[in-house]
């Protein structure tokens, strides 16, 4: 089914459409959320909040404002980051600032189960540190271009082109 039709049905509260979209994006959202909170129980809790929020606010999505993936990615990132700012989370968790998504991939053993695990691992090993940081900030953490340039101490334009090159490289690995 065409993505546009699926989203339109989802906005009309079609439960089957919701399940299809969940199947398409849930692993991705969970990866993003888990990368931020680094706790399976909390990630599971946030996952539920995210998709329930998406269902309840389905009408607020519009294709003109961006991709559906980007819309739900924003909800997931914000929910996860909100969680990390809560008092209870701060008290119980170590400082996560120094961690990047690649840590999960490099330390994971269960990753071998993933279909493109080998490709991703290859990518991670080949990817320059600058790519990892840019991708981490822009996609996993939801930084703006300006925020990223400040974080990485780089001109805004450089962020844009470097990211372009990094994603190009990613595509050659994961999409063949």
């Amino acid at each position, binding site marked *: 089914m065409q993505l546009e039709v699926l989203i339109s049905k989802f906005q009309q509260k079609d*439960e089957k459409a*919701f*399940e299809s979209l*969940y199947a*398409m*994006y*849930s*692993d*991705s*959202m*969970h*990866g*993003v959320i*888990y*990368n931020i909170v680094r706790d*399976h129980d909390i990630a*599971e809790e946030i*996952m*539920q909040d995210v*998709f*329930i929020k998406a*269902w309840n606010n389905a009408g607020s999505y519009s*294709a*003109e*404002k*961006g*991709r559906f*993936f*980007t*819309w739900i*990615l*924003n909800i997931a990132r914000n929910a996860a980051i909100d969680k990390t700012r809560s008092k209870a989370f701060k008290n119980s968790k170590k400082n996560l600032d120094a961690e990047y*998504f690649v840590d*999960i*991939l490099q330390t*994971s053993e*269960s*990753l071998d189960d*993933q279909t*493109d*695990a080998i490709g*991703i691992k290859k*990518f991670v090993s080949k990817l320059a540190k600058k790519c990892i940081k840019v*991708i981490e900030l*822009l*996609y*996993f953490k*939801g*930084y*703006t*271009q300006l925020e990223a340039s400040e974080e990485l101490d780089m001109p805004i334009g450089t962020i*844009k*082109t470097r*990211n*372009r090159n990094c*994603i190009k490289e*990613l*595509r050659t690995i*994961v*999409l063949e």
Partner: protein
Amino acid sequence: MDINAYIESGILELYVAGTLSDKENKEVYDLMLKHPEILQEVLEIEAAIIKLTASTSQQNNVHILQLIKDKLKFNASDTKVVQMTKPKNNWFTYTGWAAAIILGAGLLWTTNQNKQLQSDLQTAEIEQSYLETQIADAKTDLEASKNLLNVLRDKDIISVPLGGQGNFANTYAKVYWDKKTNKVYLDAQGLPEAPEGKVYQVWSLTLNPLTPTSLGTIDTFNTDDNKIFEITNANESQAFGITLEPAGGSESPTMEQLYTLGVVASTP
């Protein structure tokens, strides 16, 4: 517009990341609709990001969908199964029903029995009344027999044997005449059954001159059991005769049909 330069600028990667302004987003959207290459580029970027982010999810997330569906009450109408609470004292209900059924069956049985007994009682009552009738009949018969016996034993009774006449020589009858009460008892056992349409007629006779006087017809001859008939007779009879006459009787006896005849013995 240089599509390639636009793609190479890196704006589409930022579009997927969600870091563009509303205005830029709208711009990209419009260009995607116009230029399939741009749309294709966006789709590939998105697909790569989805794969990368999904790879950092260390688990299968299908079970979370069920949690979400439960919270959103999906399919609430057809999958919500309400667990019935099992009644604790079930045996109490069962024994109650069993008792009710037994009681009902018992009532039916006793009702049936009652009907049967009533029917039996009715039969017995009918039998009893039948027997009572028989006893009454027997009593009546006995009474009649006693009366008859008394009559026969009475010293004042005149006994007159009637002998068979002519063609009817083998027939006979007997008359017992009580002069005090002017009653005649006719014992007609020796007569055959009267043919259809005929009756026996009894005659009182005086001999000089020979004058018959009808004492009446015996209409019940064929149905009577003891063939003894009580007849009133105030005549100074000298003889008695019996003839067979057409139904209803005749004015004078048909002498050809004279069955029996007997003369009263002279007064002592």
